[in-house]
């Protein structure tokens, strides 16, 4: 899922300067699961903003709404009516949600309340950890399902570097050296000989080829048009 964290309250408050009415808009998908921007977090943030406004003696009308997804037009449009009555929408969606709401709603300002961090998994109670770099051309068949692009501090394809010690990364002893993990996995599968091969330089254009990445599916479009599919 996309993992995000709420911005510091001071920063959010600063970005709302001049607004007299704000719609705090949650998203019911990734950021609900990672407990950053779902209905519950919308409630908490809205209360905090109301309290701050009261303490500061400023006028601020805070409304709340959470839609299923801020990355789908049909849901984002649900924010239109409430949002248009306000000076701004404070989106608790990921960066995609903020951008898409801006695009769909056009006339309303959309301000981010979250910092979007990474694609990650829920690895422990309350802990999310990055597992994919979204690089556009997956290479983990060569590394037995473990991604060095996202998980090595230097994204090294022929690791581990000289800073791997006792299974940890030189950058921080709390970071697992992903190349140690790859080595151990290869070892357990009896495939260590694969690590003798040099992995070729990566084609970064698959992920960052100028302008936003775009993908289309003719079969999905056909279904939308009501055409029969195979």
């Amino acid at each position, binding site marked *: 899922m996309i993992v995000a964290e709420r911005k510091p309250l001071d920063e959010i408050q600063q970005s709302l300067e001049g607004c007299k009415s704000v719609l705090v808009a949650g998203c019911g998908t990734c950021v609900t699961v990672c407990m950053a921007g779902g209905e519950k977090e919308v409630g908490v943030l809205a209360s905090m903003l109301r309290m701050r406004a009261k303490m500061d003696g400023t006028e601020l009308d805070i409304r709340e709404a959470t839609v299923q997804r801020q990355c789908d037009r049909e849901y984002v449009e649900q924010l239109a009516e409430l949002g248009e009555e306000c000076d701004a929408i404070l989106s608790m969606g990921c960066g995609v949600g903020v951008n898409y709401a801006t695009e769909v709603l056009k006339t309303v300002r959309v301000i981010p309340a979250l910092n979007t961090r990474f694609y990650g998994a829920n690895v422990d109670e309350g802990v999310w950890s990055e597992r994919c770099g979204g690089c556009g051309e997956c290479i983990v068949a060569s590394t037995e399902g473990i991604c060095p692009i996202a998980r090595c*501090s*230097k*994204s*090294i*394809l*022929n*690791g*581990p*570097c*000289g*800073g*791997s*010690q*006792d*299974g940890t990364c*030189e*950058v*921080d002893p709390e970071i697992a*050296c992903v190349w*140690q993990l790859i*080595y*151990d996995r290869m070892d357990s599968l009896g495939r260590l000989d694969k*690590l*003798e091969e*040099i992995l*070729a*330089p*990566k084609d*970064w254009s698959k992920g960052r080829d100028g302008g936003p990445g775009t993908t289309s599916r003719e079969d999905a479009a056909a279904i939308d048009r009501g055409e029969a599919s195979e």
Partner: protein
Amino acid sequence: MDMKSGSNLEKMLAAGHFAVTAELGPPKSADAKAVSKKCRYLKGIVEAANITDNQTAIVRMSSIAGGVLALKRGVEPVVQMTCRDRNRLAMQSDILGAHALGVRNLLCLSGDHQKFGNHPTAKNVFDIDSIQLIQMVKEMRDDRLFMCGEEIRNTPKAPIVEPRMFIGAAANPFADPFAFRVVRLAKKVEAGADFIQTQCIYDMDRFREWMRQVVDRGLHERTAILAGVTPLKSAGMARYMRDNVPGLSVPDSVVERIAGAKKGSDEGIAFCVEQIEELKEMEGIAGVHLMAIEWEQKVEQILEATGLLPRPKVEADEAPEEG
């Protein structure tokens, strides 16, 4: 014999001499005199000196500029290049420029993470890794091609003028997983490393074990292995190296030896001399890489004590062309 680069270091190794390289950290300023001063300590007593590339991710004078200054002051440079700060375009263009300015040795490194340096909020590059960099420099030299496959010539009719580097790489026998360290060295040799400089050795037992694996795989016959040593200035430095430098192994016995001595710096030099004596006799070792960090003035004393001075002479070559 046909030389790959014609560098002094390459010739010394080709002639079978036990080679000596040193390290010359460029200044954290635009002060050319700082390079000159260090060159005075190293000129004529080492085959070449490594010019570090923003080491520990702290901004310094560029390694190519430092290398050219060193060259002008009679010290052959080994220009270090890290993957942290440049993508494949910048690297290739810098390699062309380095060759044009007379540089003939290039050490290919991943680079310390920016977190350790003085610009921790910088974006790192790591477009390619150190092994891929070695491959690229070798292809530029031997196949006379850019990484994209184009020939290294200005126009279709212009002559091919490829950069000819003696290619170096680092090896760290003290990092983990230990069993993989020799495999990684083999990958660097396969990629095209002509010489290897190791991380500085304090744990000689582990180094000996690693070298045994290197010799078993015959890698010492395909690349020249220069063993890294760094003289300890004090017990404080020994402790710092033990506790704070990632990928380094400093046994407690070494720290105790320096700490127990009447004068730590003398003991540090005595220990370094003993290490070099042992390395001179070790199978598969082609030379020593003496990294006297901000202590370049001691290089001569250490080499004198190990009988490595005067340096043997190899056939002089005309100075590399400039401009």
